[in-house]
């Protein structure tokens, strides 16, 4: 085996997919590497949806618990990143359903933001005000639109990958992106008008 081939093999043996195959076969230490590669991305995904650090951390833990639980069902088809975000998305849907029933999210929503930021928008500088308005507008989007924008803008997935994660067509993803941005524009504009009154 020449040196180049050897290097390719080595690279391949450390790919997400190869590591997950090893986890599936019982080498649990490899899950540590996958955790290091994905924990911050997953945390960001959940935090943008929940605005709660504690819940986001719980959900990240939940993703890795599910990976271990369902590791034997992993067959290596498709990209690992889309697979792990499918799990993340399903976990968030479960959390969201449970939460809508108990209504606890509303009571505690944006807890970290409340701690970190003054809720009085008028006291903020122009930039901070715009950021807060955008954040409020983003929160008013429905869950599917939020997830689509997060996966596209912050997680860097292509529309085709998002379609795989969200179990829909690529065209549906594009429509959601298009409409979400227009909706965001409108909500921000409305919020600005309300603020001026």
């Amino acid at each position: 085996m020449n040196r180049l081939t050897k290097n390719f093999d080595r690279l391949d043996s450390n790919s997400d997919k190869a590591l997950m195959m090893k986890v599936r076969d019982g080498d649990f230490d490899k899950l540590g590497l996958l955790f290091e590669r994905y924990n911050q991305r997953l945390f960001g995904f959940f935090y943008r949806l929940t605005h709660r650090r504690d819940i986001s951390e719980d959900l990240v833990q939940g993703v890795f618990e599910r990976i271990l639980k369902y590791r034997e069902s992993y067959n290596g088809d498709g990209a690992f990143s889309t697979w792990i975000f499918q799990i993340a998305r399903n976990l968030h849907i479960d959390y969201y359903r449970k939460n809508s029933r108990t209504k606890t999210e509303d009571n505690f929503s944006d807890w970290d933001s409340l701690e970190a930021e003054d809720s009085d928008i008028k006291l903020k500088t122009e930039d901070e005000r715009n950021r807060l308005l955008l954040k409020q507008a983003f929160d008013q989007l429905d869950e599917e639109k939020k997830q689509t924008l997060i996966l596209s803008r912050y997680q860097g997935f292509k529309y085709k990958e998002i379609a795989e994660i969200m179990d829909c067509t690529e065209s549906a993803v594009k429509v959601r992106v298009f409409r979400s941005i227009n909706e965001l524009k409108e909500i921000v504009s409305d919020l600005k008008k309300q603020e001026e009154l």
Partner: protein
Amino acid sequence: MIDEKYIDLVTAYLQNDLNTDQQKKLDELIESGKIDLLDLKEMEIMIGKMDSLDTPKPSSAMRDRFYTMLDEEKEAQTVSWSHKLNGWMVEQKQRFQLSYLVYIAAVFLTGLMIGDLYAPISNQDEQIEQLMSEVSQMREVMMISLLDNSSPTERLKAVNISNEIRSVDERVVNALLKTLNNDSNVNVRLAAVDALTSHANNPAARSGLINSIAQQESPIVQAALADAMLALQERQSVDEFKKLLSRDELDSNVRNKLENTIAELI
């Protein structure tokens, strides 16, 4: 608002993924007024503004919790295997005479010994090589992750881990240089000087050290960089030291040291 029949074009534009034909078509539609450039730009700006919504980093408790869970799973797996093995043994014992089992074990052990005797040494070497490479990559991931920690002790640990990485790549060098030039803690920056010096066979590490000289404000770090350049006999650093010397506020001890360093390097 842009007509939804142009969604494919607009979304491809927003993801910076237009091919030549699509770009041409979009230009034509803008020129003919069917797509308002202002609307398109507004959408692009709105997407751009989303970058201002940042997220915090997860706490270290999340990592601790994950590794605790992983350890528990590993333990459970071991227990489960030994439990299965015990069950199998009992079953086999009931099924066969003990003497028959001893005979099987003897054949098995002999096979193992013969297999071990003829195992190709080169294959073992390859496995060890691969294992070492994986350990090195794990260290790399751990190091880069720890460098973002808010605790200086953890960041110091991260820099020290880099000394255990067999051959550093661009990611590690960049992380160390970022630490050297931006870390708030002097001890962490000093450790970064040492780490980068030990990896000076990497051209990026060497040139990064040189470029960092003029950026340092701390006399201790300035002196450490002078020692490092002397150890590496790096003549290209002389110009950077001269830049430091031109500063009026430079510490007098450091000034002497730099003058001596320049004299020895020239």
